[in-house]
């Protein structure tokens, strides 16, 4: 049975249609010629397939051109994209002031020479399905509707637009309040005879809501970039930067807990490599699995390797469609790590190659043997065993401005060896090693609680809490009472203050005795005046944000989240906590104590999340009570 699937007023509608031949059919239709899609189209066409590229903008490259992101950080080199990147560099060095314009021209040349038919200012608006197999698309271009058959559709729209239309399930946002990462607008400025791209972060928005989306574009583009005779705005980039969006429910999903448990797929197509950064200061609201790593052990800027399985780009239960773009099927915790520019380029190659094998052998995508795909990807360098680098300290500059000494992380395996590292201001590896050891670490850690050394005993309390053991709760509480402001130094950025870590762990343990202290912390007007929040921190700690009391915000956000967790565990405390939330957030005083930035700025949005998260929890408790 053939259906035409469309989204009408935000909802999928299916309409039975006759299964006639399409006027034209392509081996592959690529929707979205962005970072991944442009290369996927080129690679598939270079292997002899007939390819149609559908792009809503007027140029190829997406974020990598129209979005103003010329370079990339992290990810691993290797694969067919490298020769195109080299061509972009050579062309740009000779002819252009920036790589972005060079990339547009080089990609265009490859699209043309490989025979890709390209429709700019076009968008897919309907999907033809034979049962659960995608067989064609309806496309809208400048008011004209047309339809095409396809053996394979590559949905590179970043938002899984085609997959959603077809009915594939997706997820998005964080669990605490559904919010996604902040969005940005990049502008090109001319300053001191040089062109550079400047990025302004704004609040969090659901770009799949048409009104919120347009409102966000209007607001961000109206935001003035400071200019003078020496710094001139050349242009705002045409594509706004929405960092996070939908993620498909795939045939094989990657989760953070699997990563931490060293469980790896048997069918990798590339190894992603980056940190798990969520591009905001409100990491308190990013969930417990990531929280244990980034807050509880202070390892947020450690790089991890993710073996991305081929099943990750295949929507569960559907055939004829792959989603090789940011919307690939990983959980939210992992999502920011697998979307680096080189990763998207590898994803493009893997998807194109998979489509080539299916089309040339006349089989369904699912019938393509993994070994055949692996062989091709290994030959090109897209998939390399040496890219499986585990956990590493990486980057350019440390928190204090010194160069980073890059190294692989080897977890401690003997409980007796934990004490030495716990006694430092970089205890993260030892805390996480204790988690990996499990209960066998408890006797050693319990003994360390009695040490004289401040670092050793406090960090042992963290490690015990990581194991669900509250033997160190008195030490944890003391760190909160003292507002322990020592910044640990495991990471190049986003290091945590010890008092915040203690709040996090007391929340995770559901410690009822700390409730009053945390309520006072969030309610008291005098709290913000405490010295701990106003100490001079080195610029390089990355805790300085203009017009934003970041250290105070860290303590506030951890306290709100800890109170929510305590309330989850102790229903009898909920009324008291709700009363505290009302006192803290019923006026804008809390907001003004933290920032003078507008509410719709990235910082303002994070501050508002305090209230939203608090009251969302209260609503949930009330609903459960009813």
């Amino acid at each position, binding site marked *: 049975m053939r259906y035409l699937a*469309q*989204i*009408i*007023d*935000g*909802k999928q509608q299916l309409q039975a249609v006759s299964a006639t031949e399409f006027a034209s059919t392509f081996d592959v239709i690529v929707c979205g010629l962005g970072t991944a899609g442009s290369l996927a189209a080129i690679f598939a066409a270079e292997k002899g397939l007939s390819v149609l590229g559908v792009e*809503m*903008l*007027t*140029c190829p490259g997406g974020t990598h051109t*129209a979005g103003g992101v010329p370079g990339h950080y992290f990810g691993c080199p290797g694969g067919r994209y490298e020769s195109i990147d080299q061509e972009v560099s050579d062309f740009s060095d000779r*002819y*252009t*002031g920036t790589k972005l*314009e*060079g990339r*547009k*021209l080089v990609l*265009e*040349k490859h*699209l*043309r020479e490989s025979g890709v038919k*390209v429709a*700019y*200012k076009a*968008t897919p*608006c309907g999907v033809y399905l034979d049962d659960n197999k995608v067989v064609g698309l309806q496309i*809208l271009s*400048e*008011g004209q*509707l047309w339809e095409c058959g396809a053996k394979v559709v590559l949905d590179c729209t970043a938002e899984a637009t085609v997959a959603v*239309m077809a009915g594939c399930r997706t997820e998005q946002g964080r669990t605490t309040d559904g919010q996604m990462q902040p969005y940005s607008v990049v502008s*090109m400025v*001319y300053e001191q005879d040089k*062109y550079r791209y400047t990025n302004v972060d704004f609040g969090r928005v659901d*770009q*799949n*809501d*048409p*009104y919120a*989306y*347009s409102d966000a*574009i*209007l607001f961000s*583009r*109206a*935001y*003035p*970039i400071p*200019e*003078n*005779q020496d710094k*001139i*705005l*050349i*242009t*705002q980039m*045409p*594509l*706004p930067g929405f960092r996070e969006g939908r993620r498909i429910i795939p045939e094989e999903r990657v989760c953070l807990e699997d990563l931490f448990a060293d469980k790896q797929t048997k069918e990798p197509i590339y190894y992603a490599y980056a940190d798990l950064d969520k591009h905001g200061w409100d990491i308190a609201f990013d969930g417990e699995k990531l929280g244990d790593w980034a807050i509880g052990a202070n390892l947020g800027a450690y790089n991890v390797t993710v073996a991305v399985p081929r099943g990750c780009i295949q929507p569960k239960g559907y055939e004829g469609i792959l989603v090789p773009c940011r919307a690939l099927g990983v959980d939210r915790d992992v999502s920011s790590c697998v979307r680096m520019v080189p990763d998207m380029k590898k994803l493009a190659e893997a998807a194109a190659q998979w489509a080539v094998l299916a089309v040339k052998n006349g089989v369904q995508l699912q019938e393509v043997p993994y070994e055949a795909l692996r062989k091709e990807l290994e030959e090109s360098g897209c998939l390399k065993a040496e890219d499986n680098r585990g956990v590493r300290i990486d980057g350019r500059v440390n928190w204090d401005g010194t160069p980073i000494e890059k190294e692989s992380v080897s977890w401690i395996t003997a409980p007796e060896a934990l004490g030495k590292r716990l006694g430092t201001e970089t205890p993260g590896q030892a805390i996480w090693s204790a988690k990996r050891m499990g209960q066998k670490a408890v006797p050693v850690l319990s003994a360390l609680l009695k040490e004289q050394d401040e670092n050793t005993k406090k960090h042992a309390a963290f490690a015990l809490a990581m194991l669900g053991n509250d033997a160190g709760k008195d030490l944890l509480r003391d760190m909160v009472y003292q507002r322990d402001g020592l910044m640990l130094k495991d990471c190049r950025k986003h290091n945590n203050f010890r008092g915040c870590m203690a709040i996090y762990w007391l929340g995770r343990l559901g410690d009822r005795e700390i409730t009053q202290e945390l309520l006072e912390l969030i309610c008291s007007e005098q709290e913000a005046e405490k010295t701990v929040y106003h100490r001079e921190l080195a610029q390089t700690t990355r805790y300085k944000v203009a017009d934003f009391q970041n250290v105070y915000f860290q303590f506030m956000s951890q306290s709100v989240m800890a109170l929510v967790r305590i309330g989850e565990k102790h229903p009898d405390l909920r009324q008291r906590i709700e009363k505290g939330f009302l006192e803290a957030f019923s006026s804008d005083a809390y907001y003004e104590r933290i920032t003078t930035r507008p509410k719709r700025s990235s910082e303002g949005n994070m501050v508002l999340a305090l209230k939203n998260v608090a009251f969302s929890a209260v609503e949930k408790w009330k609903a459960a009570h009813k």
Partner: protein
Amino acid sequence: MYETIILGATFAAAGIASRQKKKCLILEQSLQAGYEFFGALNYGTDYDVPLKTQEGQALYQQIFAEGVTPYMRNTCIYPILQESNVLFGTQVVSVEKKEGAFLCKTYGVGGYASFWAKNVIDTRCSEEISCEKTYNLLVESDTLPQFEGIDAQCTGIDRHYVLRCPVPLLCDYGQARELAEKTIRQFSQGQRLILLADEFDYQVEENLAATRNQIRILPSKAYKNPICAFEAGLEV
């Protein structure tokens, strides 16, 4: 029902919207406003034409803000549009007159949608109403660039010029970039490409205003510069 649906988030649209505020809805396919001038790398001419309105003068002040080079300040259109309703990333599928009003079917972020309005005004530009079009490039050059058949215009920034490359009316963006690349490969030392236009620069019959299928046609690009287009919108 909206008073007016405006097709294209152009400067002419901003003029209409600045009067109608929330009573109008602007539908825009791209993710930018004012693209018909700034996105096309066309900064307008004839800025010495006397302005007729206070709103036009205010816009002029923003574009030519003191101490800032009069160059590409497209951000000035957004605060005006913030006072109305705009849907970006939204294509118009059809417009039909029904029961004395207009039904406008669109496709955008939330899929297909329908909107009603008493009036529809199309401020966009396309091949249908243009006599010619160019694909423009912003280049940096020590001297005035000289390429056969290509007009080079000064900008507000020292050593920066716009090359206006004529392209056939039916040329698409891929073909336009292919033609542009040929010109770029002729660059001498000291000449560099800074920016390719996001949109074609259409030349439209001056002050063209018409009605087609009861839809009012008011192409923003029928005016010499963004402020004149804005003032034309104000007059609607």
